[in-house]
């Protein structure tokens, strides 16, 4: 029973948490790709930037969270989302839009986004230094231990505040995004522009507005993902390097240009990571007498320091066997 609790804590809860974070990043990448037709490499840095804004606001008003009983950074999240969304709109205006206007090939804009990556990383380091920071200043991470009402389960299920928040937030965001894309005028215009940008223009759809809305959504979701990840672990300036591959893998696994695919892809990558670094020896221990081999103390597919290779292999596999992704997106 304890083994099962261990599995729930280390795979189910961790997978849901990191999967949600990857999903939010991947949705942004997929939306930007379907509207602007380029792979936005600086997306992971928008996530870091969002977390940095949340950290900055937490440092300015550290007492807000304890006053309402939530993590301060979470209370500050709406403001950080607005700041990140504005930053995303202006990054587009300053760096990508002039290139689009010249009608350059998408790869040129991809290169520009790599430049934006380096610039954002430099800026973030300039303001907060290179060390990892805790997002908790006047408060502490809330940890909930749920004791199970079973004789054999002496270990509790452990959930942290940020884990609960991100999972709940993701459910809300999925519903909101679905309603936006299918029920609102601008959401439908986004889908129309993704389908056929030339016809969208001919129909009188204001494509500049659609582009702006895309950046606002992608930027806000990036801020949520970055902030919640930093709340659960810590804020590091090089956060984006660890996020870049998984979120792109998630977008591609789901099928680029397909928002629901990106959500699914996020969880595929998230669970693949947690399952592959999980110590299976713990689950097998009760059966050790029946096994034909000596059970080692740790038995994982991948040592946890090589976790980053997991999305890479999934990416390779999907590109070889199903290049359009699970949900049949646009081929890159």
């Amino acid at each position, binding site marked *: 029973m304890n083994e099962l609790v261990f599995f729930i804590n280390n795979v189910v809860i961790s997978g849901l948490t990191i999967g949600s974070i990857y999903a939010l990043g991947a949705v942004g990448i997929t939306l930007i790709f379907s509207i602007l037709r380029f792979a936005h490499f600086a997306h992971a840095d928008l996530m870091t930037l969002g977390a940095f804004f949340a950290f900055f606001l937490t440092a300015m008003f550290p007492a807000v969270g304890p006053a309402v009983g939530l993590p301060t950074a979470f209370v500050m999240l709406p403001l950080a989302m607005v700041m990140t969304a504005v930053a995303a709109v202006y990054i587009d205006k300053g760096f990508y839009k002039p290139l689009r206007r010249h009608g350059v090939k998408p790869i040129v804009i991809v290169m520009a986004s790599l430049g934006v990556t380096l610039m954002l990383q430099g800026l973030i380091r300039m303001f907060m230094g290179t060390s990892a920071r805790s997002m908790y200043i006047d408060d502490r991470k809330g940890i909930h231990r749920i004791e199970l009402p079973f004789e054999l389960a002496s270990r509790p299920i452990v959930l942290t505040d940020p884990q609960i928040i991100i999972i709940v937030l993701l459910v809300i965001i999925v519903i909101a995004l679905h309603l936006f894309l299918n029920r609102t*005028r601008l959401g*439908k*215009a986004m*889908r*129309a522009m*993704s*389908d*056929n940008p*030339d*016809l*969208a*223009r*001919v*129909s*009188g*759809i*204001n494509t500049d507005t659609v582009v702006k809305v895309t950046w606002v959504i992608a930027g806000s979701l990036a801020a949520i993902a970055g902030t919640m990840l930093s709340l659960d672990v810590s804020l590091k300036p090089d956060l984006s390097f660890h996020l870049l591959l998984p979120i792109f893998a998630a977008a591609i696994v789901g099928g680029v240009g397909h928002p629901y695919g990106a959500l699914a892809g996020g969880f595929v990558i998230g669970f693949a990571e947690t399952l592959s670094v999980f110590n299976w020896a713990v689950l097998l221990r009760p059966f050790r007498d029946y096994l034909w081999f000596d059970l080692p103390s740790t038995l994982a597919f991948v040592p946890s320091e090589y976790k980053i290779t997991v999305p890479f292999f999934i990416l390779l596999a999907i590109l070889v066997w199903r290049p359009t992704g699970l949900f049949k997106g646009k081929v890159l």
Partner: protein
Amino acid sequence: MALFEATNVHGGYGGMNILNGVNMSLEANEIGVIVGPNGAGKSTMLKAIFGLLHVNEGSIQLRGESITNADPVELVKRKMAFVPQEKNIFPSLTVEENLEMGAFIRHDDFQPMLDKVYSFFPPLADKRKQPAGELSGGQRQMVAMGRALMTEPSLILLDEPTAGLSPLYMSEIFERIISINKAGVGVLMVEQHAKQALKIAHKGFVLVAGQNRFTDTGQNLINDPEVAKAFLGG
């Protein structure tokens, strides 16, 4: 005053002109048909009118106001609409969503117009919740034309509305075009099926090498032996 007037239009891609002085005019509630051999600049002319191609010389006017090189969004606001030949629907959007996108610039209640489009194209009414990409060629063309009608335009530009359709569908589409026109919409269209199209045309323009070769009423062009021999297959 003419609804639409194009005078001595020159234009093309890059430095090369494809149009070398095209003249056209259309009164309100008229159907104008552009015919001519491949590469004569028929579709290019429609694109030039709709601001999708740069006009280097000449002028285009809508009700006496210049719309030369105007932005497509601006033209939609001025009650013009354009149906491209290919890729003229949003395939993953439902039929109704396609029509709604046609009404994007409208902030008033367009439900009456939606009903009107369904009455123009009854086959669409049963498929309003179906993705437009799943429809047949003829029905897609109806979606495309319906989308363009949603702003209640005074002039609609159609680029080969019957391209790739079976003869049965072709005559159906022509009939729809007549009823749209009777509802008060000026139509300017490019057609490969020159004879059938000129039959319903008030005005016909025969373009060759980016210039008007013949300009007359549809009926006169059909009866002109020279036109018939060279462009209508005898």
